[in-house]
């Protein structure tokens, strides 16, 4: 168990009798420095764990909001070193910081090299939405060598056998996708999430966090009633997109949203 791993944050939330709040933004959005400021604001306002997205040209699991942000970052020339710099700046706050990435950039960079560099900047591990543990990669070996968290996804369509296989490969937490669909804020929470979390918890002691669709404190509270963590991405991205012309108003709005969500994860139990 490492100090940088996300398990510490989940344990703390559990001790407080609440769910953890996991916040996501892609690196380099709206700029590299602006993204770091935004993520630090989210930490200050109550995020327990941060996911830094690695912008990718072919994000098949993302809806229009995150696609737009990632594309903007890519067009501005964001590189993996910028992603690592973002991780370093956020991890320095003491908040566990993961990278959420599609697989090909990691492979092209070199799996072990990526793991080495991520560990060097204090990163906690990877969330890998477009691969499963049974896909052939060198990630398990590299993650184990550098003591990094491995977060894979389970879905409402997953069989019990696949959930068991997936949680066995996870370290840190298990990412349960609440809906059958891509990322994006939704007006109602999914009724698929509860049963999925129950099926997952039946086969693991790892924390189970729920993502896809949560955008406000009330939804966070609903999810926090049955999950160990609530993951929010598109709603943060949307807030920054809505304040594209005024960075300081964007940070203020981000802080307000984070506080609402942080309140939500405390109301759920």
């Amino acid at each position, binding site marked *: 168990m490492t100090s940088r791993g996300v398990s510490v944050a989940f344990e703390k939330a559990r001790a407080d009798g609440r769910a953890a709040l996991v916040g996501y933004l892609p690196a380099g959005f709206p700029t590299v420095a602006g993204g770091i400021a935004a993520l630090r604001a989210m930490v200050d306002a109550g995020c327990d764990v941060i996911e830094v997205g690695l912008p990718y040209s072919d994000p098949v*699991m993302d809806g229009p909001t995150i696609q737009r942000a990632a594309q903007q970052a890519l067009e501005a020339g964001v590189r993996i070193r910028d992603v690592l710099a973002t991780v370093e700046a956020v991890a320095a706050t003491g908040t566990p910081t993961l990278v959420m990435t599609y697989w090909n950039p990691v492979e092209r960079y070199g799996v072990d090299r990526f793991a080495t560099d991520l560990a060097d900047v204090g990163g906690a591990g990877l969330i890998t939405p477009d691969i499963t543990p049974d*896909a052939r990669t060198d990630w398990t070996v590299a993650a184990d060598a550098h003591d990094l968290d491995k977060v894979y996804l389970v879905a409402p369509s997953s069989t019990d056998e696949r959930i068991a296989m997936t949680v066995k490969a996870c370290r840190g937490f298990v990412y349960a996708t609440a809906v059958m669909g891509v990322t994006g804020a939704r007006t109602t929470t999914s009724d698929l999430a509860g049963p999925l979390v129950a099926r997952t918890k039946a086969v693991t002691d790892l924390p189970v966090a729920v993502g896809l669709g949560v955008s406000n404190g009330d939804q966070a509270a609903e999810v926090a009633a049955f999950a160990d963590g609530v993951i929010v991405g598109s709603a943060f991205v949307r807030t920054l997109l809505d304040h594209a012309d005024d960075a300081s108003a964007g940070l203020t709005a981000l802080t307000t949203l984070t506080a609402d969500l942080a309140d939500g994860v405390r109301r759920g139990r």
Partner: protein
Amino acid sequence: MTAQPTPWDADANGWFGDSSGQQWGGRYMPEALVAALDELTVAWQDAMADETFLADFDAILRDYANVPSPLYEAGRLSELVGCRVLLKREDLNHTGAHKVRNVLGQALLTRRMGKTRVIAETGAGQHGVATATAAAYFGLDCTVYMGSVDMKRQALNVVRMRLLGARVVPVDTGSGTLKDAINEAFRDWVASVDHTAYLFGTAAGPHPFPSMVRDFARGIGDEARAQCLDTYGVLPDAVAACVGGGSNAIGLFQAFLGDEGVEIHGFEPGGDGVETGRHAATIHAGADGVLHGARTFVLQDDEGQTIESHSISAGLDYPGVGPQHAHLAASGRATYTPVTDAEAMEALALLSRTEGIIPAIESAHAVAGALEVAKRLAAEKGPDAIMLVNLSGRGDKDMETALEWFGLGTEK
């Protein structure tokens, strides 16, 4: 009629190649789609072992799609190069290309699985038109994703799809081309997988698509091989096809992989020339990576971001390639060579004038490359040497491009 497995086929997990060396394909996909891909794998394997399904497929191809297509000896072209040039006339199929085989196969499978809706991606619009056609034939609801850039380039095919009753959805993200349409189709599928089948347009993507699409297209090669033996009593000396994603090529090649004496040639879109960087020659100039669910060759930058491809032929304009082609290239069983836009257009004009056949620009890449091979065969083996080329589609859709390229708008 069930095809026997060969050393060139994928294993149960979709891996091509010897397990002791580099392997290609597999399945790199979000967990949410794994159950659907597993369901599809089982359904496809059951169907391939079911004589009734295979008989239904053959009957639809014969009665509706004008398959088997003829193997035609191009007399004047043969004279020009000094040996026999045979054209597998897939351009004469219903909808004008080999793609009708794949969509009818997948749509028949969709009906067998009890799903009511199909989705597809399309680049040039050919796969979209074929899918819309199959959906109309089987009475399935149909949505086609198409890059907004491609919709402008291929406006006529958009009209065709809509006429056939399909919903055509423009995709503005990324480069607004085929790869982005594939991304959008996957996004749809994640949310609709319980009642929707994704009719993938080429022999690429996650397992089972590379093998399944090949199985539905392999009639091209099975027929051509038998037709060649029937007429000439021998196998061809070489076979050739164009390779974008690679469905027509693998459909032709599969039948000849075990015939050691038969050279196998794939011709990739060389665009403005590989040295210019504006091309789609994925095998020639790409690097090992993962795109759209498979390990294969990918046009990518030093950080693994996909590079936009370029070809005059929208149907070959794709930055990845089917994993079985990656395996055939890496193992040396097949040879892949780039053909530039200019070479392809020259071949298009040549075939039009010598044979009265206007090929699709995609297929013109195969013709251009094959003529060079044929000249060598003629020199090595004499006039009885046989060069067999898959003429994968007809050129009607490409007349605007031809008009612009050749400046044919006014009589000179």
